[in-house]
């Protein structure tokens, strides 16, 4: 446990990628097999559940300390695990000698839900501050220690005999507690339960469009498709089919209205959207389906799923990833002709002869649920991640409106000392007397702008409610957003998609900000 707590702490504080890889490699080399396996599961977030809820943790710390002191401290620190580990009072503080795997086995096999808090308290009482932090992070999931999967793969390569490509291929197959992964890395055979044909394959991702680069690109070498505002998915069509999300999570059950059963083995890449009466609906509609593991019949009827396929990775025994895009498109069409499922279609290609024309199509296309276009090189192979000269996303120009800052809240994590989350609003009507909140933004500014905003907030506070400050109306900011829709959930009646700061208008008077009517008119 102590080694792992130290590893986490070192990872958090190490600025360089190489140092982090080094730390991981050293840990994997010196630890025992079981500890390695669990550490790997924790670092890659493979745990299938949270062992303890935020509510239970808060109850524990309030019993141990004081409700108000906890609240003040949490507002200040901005990280629950760190707040609790610093605040925890113990008469008996010393390092636990328990191994990581022993600890994990206790909590993995713990059935007495009502005794969980007592058990956790037992460990927190017998731990150092750093160990408490580690324990809470493990049990709540989501470490955020700045370790990407790519980094871990690199460390695995260095601590065994396997090539990176092999690790990449079987990465998603190993099961908790992953001790067999480390045996395999040392040269043993793959565990029998791993079936390559059931595994998620890493996605190819799009680079951002860059106008300078594109000047020299010939349009003939590229195709373009619309970028739909849905969720990316990989579907394995087979006798035991599966649907995976962008990060490889199994979402088959959530989208059970897509038929994945077919003889053979086909892996298809595309976008999940909601489509009704032949029309793709907004992301808001899709949100009703996301995360619902067993959607009701009614939900399925109200929000029917459609899969827009745009690429194919495997066509039976053919590994299409090694073929050019044009070849892959042919295989994809063959597949669509075979499967004939009504809620699966191919993404259509946009006809264009110059980049200017494509830009025009992108901006003027009437469908509201297009985020932009994706441009793909015809000769490109299907490779993992963002590949040079592969795919490019060219987003629609966002909407941009000036709003007034109304509330500010302290940020979390890295920005916990700053007022970094802002609620902005506009005038209710043309009388310019009352404001209504329209949305929340917490990105888009530079670090220096954040410091100025923070100072402005502190000097213009009207009232404080815990971490939130209500502010004197006085600061105008330009907010960009990708889309706008009606919403019954918000007081203003509208919901903005991905609002972010584009400019701080220090000089602009608040009387020049628009009213809600103007905002609503943007929807059409």
């Amino acid at each position: 446990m102590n080694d792992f707590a130290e590893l986490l702490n070192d990872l958090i504080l190490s600025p360089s990628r190489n140092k982090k890889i080094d730390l991981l490699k050293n840990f994997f080399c010196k630890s025992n097999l079981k500890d390695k396996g669990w550490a790997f599961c924790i670092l890659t977030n493979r745990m299938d559940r949270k062992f303890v809820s935020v509510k239970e943790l808060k109850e524990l710390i309030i019993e141990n300390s004081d409700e108000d002191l906890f609240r003040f401290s949490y507002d200040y620190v901005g990280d629950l695990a760190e707040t609790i580990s610093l605040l925890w009072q113990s008469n008996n503080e010393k390092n636990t000698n328990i191994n990581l795997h022993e600890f994990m086995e206790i909590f993995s096999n713990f059935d007495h839900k009502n005794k969980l808090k007592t058990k956790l308290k037992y460990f927190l009482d017998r731990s150092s501050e750093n160990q408490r932090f580690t324990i809470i992070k493990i049990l709540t999931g989501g470490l955020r220690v700045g370790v990407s999967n790519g980094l871990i793969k690199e460390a695995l390569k260095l601590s065994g005999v396997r090539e990176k490509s092999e690790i990449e291929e079987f990465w998603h197959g190993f099961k908790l507690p992953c001790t067999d992964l480390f045996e395999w890395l040392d040269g043993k055979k793959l565990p029998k339960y791993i079936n390559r044909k059931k595994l998620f394959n890493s996605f190819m991702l799009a680079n951002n469009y860059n106008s300078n680069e594109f000047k020299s690109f010939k349009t003939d070498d590229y195709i373009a498709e619309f970028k739909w505002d849905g969720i990316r998915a990989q579907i394995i069509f087979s006798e035991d089919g599966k649907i995976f999300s962008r990060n490889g999570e199994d979402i088959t059950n959530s989208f059970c209205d897509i038929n994945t059963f077919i003889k053979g083995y086909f892996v298809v890449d595309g976008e999940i959207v909601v489509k009704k009466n032949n029309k793709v609906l907004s992301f808001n509609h899709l949100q009703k389906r996301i995360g619902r593991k067993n959607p009701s019949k009614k939900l399925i009827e109200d929000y029917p799923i459609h899969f827009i396929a745009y690429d194919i990775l495997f066509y039976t025994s053919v590994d299409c990833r090694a073929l050019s895009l044009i070849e892959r498109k042919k295989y994809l069409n063959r597949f669509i002709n075979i499967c004939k499922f009504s809620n699966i279609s191919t993404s259509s290609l946009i006809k264009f002869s110059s980049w200017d024309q494509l830009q025009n199509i992108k901006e003027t296309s009437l469908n509201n649920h297009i985020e932009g276009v994706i441009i793909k090189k015809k000769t490109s192979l299907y490779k993992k991640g963002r590949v040079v000269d592969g795919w490019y996303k060219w987003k629609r120009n966002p909407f941009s409106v000036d709003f007034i800052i109304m509330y500010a809240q302290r940020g979390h994590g890295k920005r916990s000392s700053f007022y970094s989350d802002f609620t902005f609003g506009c005038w209710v009507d043309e009388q310019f007397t009352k404001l209504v909140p329209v949305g929340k933004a917490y990105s888009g500014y530079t670090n220096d702008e954040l410091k100025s905003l923070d100072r402005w907030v502190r000097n213009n506070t009207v009232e404080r409610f815990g971490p939130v400050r209500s502010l004197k109306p006085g600061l105008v900011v330009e907010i960009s957003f990708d889309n706008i829709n009606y919403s019954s959930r918000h007081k203003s009646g509208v919901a903005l998609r991905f609002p972010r700061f584009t400019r701080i208008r220090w000089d602009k008077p608040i009387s020049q900000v628009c009213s809600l009517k103007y905002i609503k008119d943007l929807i059409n």
Partner: protein
Amino acid sequence: MRKTNINWLKKKREGLFCVPGNFFIDPVFPVEKALITHAHTDHARPNNKSIFSSKETIELMHLRYGESYCSDFQIARFDEKIKINDVTVQIHPAGHILGSVQFLINYKGYRLLISGDYKRTKDKTCLSYEPVKCDTFITEATFGLPIFNHPNDQNEVKKLIKSIKANVNKTHLIGVYALGKCQRLITLLRNLGYDETIYLHGALTKISNFYSKNNIILGNISNISECSKSEYANKLVLCPPSSLNDKWSQKFKNVVKGYASGWMRIRQRVKQKNIELPLILSDHADWDEILKTVNDVNPNEVLVTHGREEALVHYLTKKNFKSSALNLIGFEDENE
């Protein structure tokens, strides 16, 4: 303008004002007469007409501000009570940095103790804090949250020595405040047997030499400009925190960056500042020290300023102390 419980103390734009004494304490704008608790720039500003403080504080202000440090000064001594208009004032050590004092102000038998910044941990570079019984106590709350619990200072400095030994080819660049923290870190290093030359950023030399002149033993210290680039490896270099990420620091290629501060308690702050080697070393009282001090001086009323007042006021009220936040302006920055 909100009155405190004692009606002869007022908050003004310039800062805290003692009416019967006709002076300000640590004013943020120039005034006729100012009592200065210590020489940190958020407490001691230039251009006051007349200042009253310890000998060291006045000399440090002169060193920092040149001739604008004041037009006239009066040195306070620990063993004397000075009458200023209708009050008497006596200074007591605050244990914060060299020359730092508390002011005990007596008006018609009512005793007001203004602590300025203080700590209770022993520090060889200054006199230890002296608790004084009083009626109203004004305390700082820079670390006024129960999450702040400063660890043993020697153990923190041992971390630095260990890192220097483990990374012989690297330069250790440690951010420290020029006045106080820098010299305290050096004396702690010397006590633990680190006797190599310690190199300083130019901004730290003047004050360190002042400490040496005041018989605080810093051992071999040298300006980093006297060290050639080829010899940077394995050196310990102290610099102001702002220099850790500026152009100056880029000349050190193979470097471990550290920062000696009470804020290093919080990992997220450490990360924000890109610090690899956090040293939790503070010249302010932590939560337990503040509570201990309130108990020691045993006042009727506690006024809280500088930092996280809410939690402390809440806690003291719960413990049956009359307590409120002073809400002075100009002190909200999280400086030590």
